[in-house]
């Protein structure tokens, strides 16, 4: 058995299995009670509130940071939406200006074309009138020439000038056919 170097031997240790040696129970219990209660008080009053506080403040900090990040994101989203709206407005404005300009220019061109056309038509009508007058004049000339020619031819053939009215009637008859 154990021959212990310690001079102070617990009584009844010989042969007894130490965990079941009831003579040591009282001392163990007293010290267990003291140490356990001291540890409990230290934990409950000092250590755990401290650590719990650290963890809580960290969680609060994280939650705050996430909330702040969310607010910033909302802000940037709003800015983006405003920018996009401005862009769309500008695009619509540009479109409107372009349409307006196109319409105005088309109207101008139409007006110009119309005045030009009117001018041309007027000129055309005038020209046609001139042509008709010229033609009539020419026709009148042709009749005179034809009458003169007929008079000369008849004079040569019969040796005597025909009457002007007869020649005129004959030429009119010939021209009609």
């Amino acid at each position: 058995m154990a021959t212990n170097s310690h001079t102070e031997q617990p009584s009844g240790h010989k042969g007894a299995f130490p965990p079941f040696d009831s003579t040591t129970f009282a001392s163990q219990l007293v010290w267990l009670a003291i140490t356990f209660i001291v540890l409990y008080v230290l934990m409950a009053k000092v250590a755990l509130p401290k650590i719990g506080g650290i963890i809580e403040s960290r969680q609060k900090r994280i939650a705050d940071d996430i909330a702040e990040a969310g607010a910033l994101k909302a802000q940037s989203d709003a800015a983006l939406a405003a920018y996009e709206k401005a862009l769309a407005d500008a695009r619509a404005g540009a479109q409107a200006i372009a349409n307006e300009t196109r319409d105005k220019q088309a109207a101008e061109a139409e007006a110009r074309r119309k005045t030009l056309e009117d001018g041309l038509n007027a000129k055309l009508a005038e020209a046609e009138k001139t042509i008709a007058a010229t033609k009539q004049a020419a026709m009148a000339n042709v009749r005179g020439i034809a009458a003169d020619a007929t008079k000369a031819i008849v004079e040569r053939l019969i040796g005597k000038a025909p009457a002007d009215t007869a020649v005129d009637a004959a030429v009119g008859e010939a021209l009609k056919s």
Partner: protein
Amino acid sequence: MATDPIHQFQIVNLFPVGKIGHTEIAFTNSAAYMVAAVVIISIFLIAGASRRALVPGRIQSAAELTYEFVANTIRSTAGTEGMKFFPFVFTLFTFILTVNLVGLIPYTFTVTTHIVITATLALSVFLTVLVYGFWKNGLHFFNLFVPKGIPVYILPLIVFIEVLSFLSRPISHSVRLFANMLAGHITLKVFASFITLLGGAGIFGIVGATLPLALVVALTALELLVAFLQAYVFAILTCIYLNDAIHPGH
């Protein structure tokens, strides 16, 4: 003799403190290790939390981890109401874990290898459950022994079994921790003594002694796990028992 595997469990009186009645109270080696555990835990946790860093250092991280671990254990087994007992469970867990781990250092004493210690801890849990259970639920606490949906004719048997299992809780609770630590330390010591015995038997003995040496190394690793696991099991069983006191309906 150093090879006696029981010698390590010897309680040695370091100095007497006083007397309660006829019983002498002494400061023993066991008491010294209990005080050491309190000092180690307090320094670890209070020093760890002293810097209050937002980004924790190593010790603070470990302290926070222990805190969260025990808190989550309670929350998952006994609900948020169980957090009333957080300091109690935390003290039990860290105390048992520390004395278990310190006891694994060679030449040290393991407080939890004494049934009187584990039985007292288990009884304190048992009494807490009883007192809190009756204080909070009154006579409804007896619902714990009457499971719902049981036919009336086998109810007496069920109630008898429930009461018996309830009463045997402190026994299993304490013996589990005690027996695990005791058996582990005896096994370690027996294999360790093989090393010295073989080592004294010439050159072949020294070669042969490597086998128990390797075993002791492996066993130490296993005992490290057991030391943690038993502290955890003790804590989680405490939570489960406390849950019965908080919510006695099955």
